């Protein structure tokens, strides 16, 4: 019989590291996400270029394009970690060994790692290719980071659900987008302001995104065990 000497965090980190190790060896999720993102970015950049859009319109339209690329790329791969457990038949053994909250946090950390890698590659490339001028870089970076956290927080529990569903392909996006819409619109607005350089007191959009992250994570912690044990 086992004696419990560890915390949820230790167990979550164990799951996170295991996912990272598998991902490092197979690169299934990251390849899907990055290829999607790079292809879309190239298509956008090629067809719009850096001068097609009027200078006054750029902060807003570029921000829209950036978040559409980020959100849809994320949706192309964030369900992988759960779906793979289901497909490889390892989900039951994970259920028998790990506490549900630890599983959720481990998978959330893994998805956030993927999102971090995605943003680290795509955002600078986007700025470079589109000549996106940002007058308030601190705010912009905070928006990108909090938005990334929000994408992970809003989709991880959905990924756990669609892993148990019979039709997975489009379902992940169909279920995630309505929940992500408030976040997306907030992030677009925030990045637009950062690009223009409006010094709004207290960065309200970042605060909204952080509040979104907190609410989604807390709700998921309550609801995830119901899904996991079903």
């Amino acid at each position, binding site marked *: *019989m*086992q*004696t*419990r*000497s*560890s915390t949820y965090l*230790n*167990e979550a980190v*164990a*799951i996170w590291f*295991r996912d990272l*190790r*598998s991902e490092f*060896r*197979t690169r299934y999720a990251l390849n899907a996400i990055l290829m999607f993102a790079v292809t879309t970015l190239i298509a956008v950049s090629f067809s719009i270029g850096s001068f097609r859009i009027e200078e006054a319109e750029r902060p807003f339209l570029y921000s829209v394009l950036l978040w559409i690329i980020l959100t849809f790329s994320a949706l192309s791969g964030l369900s992988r970690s759960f779906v793979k457990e289901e497909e*490889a*038949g*390892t989900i*039951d*053994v*994970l*259920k*028998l*060994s*790990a*506490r549900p909250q*630890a599983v959720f946090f481990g998978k959330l950390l893994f998805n956030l790692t993927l999102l971090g890698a995605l943003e680290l590659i795509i955002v600078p490339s986007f700025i470079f290719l589109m000549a996106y001028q940002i007058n308030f870089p601190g705010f912009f970076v905070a928006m990108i980071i909090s938005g990334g956290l929000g994408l992970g927080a809003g989709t991880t529990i959905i990924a756990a659900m669609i892993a148990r569903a019979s039709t997975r392909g489009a379902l992940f996006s169909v279920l995630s987008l309505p929940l992500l819409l408030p976040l997306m619109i907030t992030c677009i607005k925030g990045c637009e302001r950062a690009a223009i350089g409006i010094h709004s007191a207290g960065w309200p959009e970042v605060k909204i995104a952080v509040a979104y992250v907190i609410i989604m994570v807390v709700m998921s912690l309550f609801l995830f*065990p119901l899904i996991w*044990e079903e």
Partner: protein
Amino acid sequence: MFTLKVSGIGKHYGETLVFKNISFQLNQGDVLAITGWNGSGKSTLLRIIAGLVKPSTGRVEMFFNADPIPKESRRRFIGMVAPALSLYDELTGLESIEFFCRVRGLACNRNDCLNIIELVGLAEHATKMGREYSSGMKQRLKLAQALLHKPPLLLLDEPATNLDSKGIDVLEQIISNQRQSGMTVIASNEKREADYADTVINLSE
């Protein structure tokens, strides 16, 4: 002292009845075999006991020193091997075992993990990737995973599958050790596996 009590378990999927009204109680040292034709629900019954599937009727209870064990802490008392329970292909045997140690919150170091791998006879293959394992080696690794936390309840679904004669010896050793520390439920069609048991429940009858 650990006890398992199964009362009035039945399962149907949609309108198809798999089995109904299965009841038994197991105490320390017991070995139970569940037999039956293909599709009679042996694996399903084991999955119900493990808590992976909900029964349509009846309930599974576990007691530790007569105190009921709530569902959410049962995973500490159960070790399970089944054809449908796969381990990670992208990890080496040792990494798999270390992962399950950590995720179960066990205080075990690399040596403890190597010991259990040696117990199932995989010492030379500990650093091979899961996908390079033969089916028999995979089965041995599954046994190691199930024994890791020294569970009082061992659920074995066709445990001898793919095992060679040395593997069978290991399995027999595990079952006889388990008689001292807990109980075993074996689901199988093979007479040899059913012979390890003191009691047999036939789901086809």
